[in-house]
């Protein structure tokens, strides 16, 4: 045993000392550390899923079949197959056809297609939210008075539960008809998604655009750089660290908004619709109802992950001036 340890230690020491001093080697070393930390994150993510599955099954096995009821309120769910199907049943159901008809697609494909539809609508809503949010932030950054005038309304806007009015929005939309353009039902859903998405983006972008240090603003001033050059060369790059989380939050909001708006407007084709539809069939096919739920989770992850990808592309804008 000791022999092995002795042989391993110097080898490692040698590698470290070789890679430390050189600039390139250092950079390679940091990249490997980053890669290994990414792998670690993935491993932990997988471990988390397994743990949740184990807890689910353990509770299902050990918990009372009528759940835990305290003072008349059920604080833990029933453990019947109807309320909590087995993990393997739920996963297995994904591979089976969605209905008994011979031409039916497997459940996962139906859920996947619906999720893609919703993702498209959410993305459209997110994009509108980005444009509106950044536009508002630009106006508020440019004119202090606009910040005072607009910011309270932006905050108040989020207290209006637009989702609750989704059918109303839909009926408003159906009256919009400009030339060849005709309002589609999915646009109402996208509009609601954008309504939820623009808020964090506006707030984050405003904070980011206001974030440049005074010394940097003054530097631009000494270059006699006007508003637009300062915006492009200083404010937007400085805003990136604030924008990225805001965009991610906006993406998550857009997905939630799209799913809920689909449900309340009854839009066909999206995941919100099949969520309701399959839940209605749960008494006969309890595992099937979980398909769209998994789909919605994956949808949220994909949306947030896409924005995270943006963060990787823009990683140099997240640096700080301090020496590492």
């Amino acid at each position: 045993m000791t022999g092995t340890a002795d042989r391993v230690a110097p080898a490692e020491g040698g590698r470290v000392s070789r890679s430390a001093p050189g600039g390139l080697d250092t950079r390679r070393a940091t990249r490997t550390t980053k890669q290994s930390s990414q792998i670690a994150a993935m491993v932990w993510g997988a471990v988390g899923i397994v743990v949740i599955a184990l807890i689910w099954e353990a509770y299902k096995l050990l918990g009372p079949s009528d759940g835990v009821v305290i003072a008349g309120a059920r604080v833990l769910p029933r453990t019947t197959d109807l309320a909590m199907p087995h993990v393997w049943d739920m996963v297995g159901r994904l591979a089976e056809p969605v209905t008994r008809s011979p031409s039916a697609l497997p459940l996962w494909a139906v859920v996947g297609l619906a999720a893609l539809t919703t993702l498209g609508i959410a993305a459209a809503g997110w994009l509108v939210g980005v444009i509106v949010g950044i536009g508002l932030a630009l106006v508020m950054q440019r004119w202090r008075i606009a910040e005072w005038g607009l910011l309270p309304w932006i905050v108040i806007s989020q207290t209006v539960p637009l989702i609750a009015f989704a059918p109303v929005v839909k009926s408003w939309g159906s009256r919009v008809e400009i030339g060849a353009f005709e309002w589609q039902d999915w646009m109402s859903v996208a509009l609601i998604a954008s309504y939820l998405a623009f808020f964090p983006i506006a707030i984050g972008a405003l904070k980011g655009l206001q974030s440049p240090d005074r010394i940097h603003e003054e530097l631009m001033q000494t270059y006699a750089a006007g508003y637009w050059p300062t915006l492009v060369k200083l404010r937007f790059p400085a805003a990136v660290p604030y924008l990225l989380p805001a965009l991610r939050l906006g993406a998550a909001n857009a997905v939630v908004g799209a799913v809920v708006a689909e449900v309340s407007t009854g839009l066909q084709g999206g995941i919100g619709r099949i969520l309701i539809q399959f839940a209605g069939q749960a008494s006969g096919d309890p595992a099937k109802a979980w398909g769209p739920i998994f789909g919605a989770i994956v949808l949220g992850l994909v949306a947030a992950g896409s924005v995270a990808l943006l963060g990787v592309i823009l990683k140099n804008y997240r640096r700080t001036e301090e020496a590492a």
Partner: protein
Amino acid sequence: MTDGDGGLRSDAGGGSRPASRNPDAAAAGIRDGAGAPPQPAGTTAVEVRGVDKIFETTSGHVQALDAIDLTVAAGEFVSLIGPSGCGKSTLMRLIADLDAPSAGTVSVFGKTAKQARLDQEYGIAFQSAGLLPWRTVAANVALPLELHGVASAARSGRVAELLDMVGLSDFADRYPDQLSGGMQQRVAIARSLAEQPRLLLMDEPFGALDEMTREKMQAELVRIAAETGAAVVFVTHSIPEAVFLSDRVVVMSPRPGRIREIVPMRLGVDTRRAARTEELREERGFFEMVTAVREALHGETPVTAGPRGVETR
């Protein structure tokens, strides 16, 4: 101007100064007629006249500058020295038009400070480097060129030249957070020189450097200033640095910020830059100048200081 502590002397135009500084014999030969900067009409780089600066704060007002008069000739190297808080940075900011004086006027190359800024008459290096963290070293140096529409080929050539000058060619693709504080400061200096300005404003640019690099950069700065004929207003806390670099050293006192005395360095007009070699640091005259500045800085007002005061003059 009435405070009797040398306020009158703070006017740079004084032609009487060389005579009053005669005791400084070590500077043999280059002494006579050399004290005053060359100042033909129209070649004044900076002219500060009767400037006050008062900051209004919540806890009353702070008089940062009081009755400042200072003229910097084109091509002249002037250092500002004085205890912390005496208004050196404030004065520099007024010249750079980053702040407006409460009273008095500031003109740069005969224009208002604002016009001079819009015309890009000066390059500036702040007390802290102020690099943009998302730009590489090269891109940081290129920023002013980029903003002023220099073509990309010319830009990269100039950047390479500047980085070579500050000894950071190997770090062109690094980011500021991968550099030491001193290296960052050198990048900032390169950036301030990018457009070969006629006036350089430098606020303690070498503060973060080690002694070796510092001396090297000082020599570089002297060379650059001589080559480009740029006037330099240089803030420092180091007396030897001020003496080594400057044609004149402006000694300031705090609360309120005033010019206590302007000490001309011994080097003559023609030899001004050429004579500032490394050997200078070892000469006796150098130490005498250091003493003169130190006394102006710490000592009593020159008028009442008796023989010593005379000596410093």
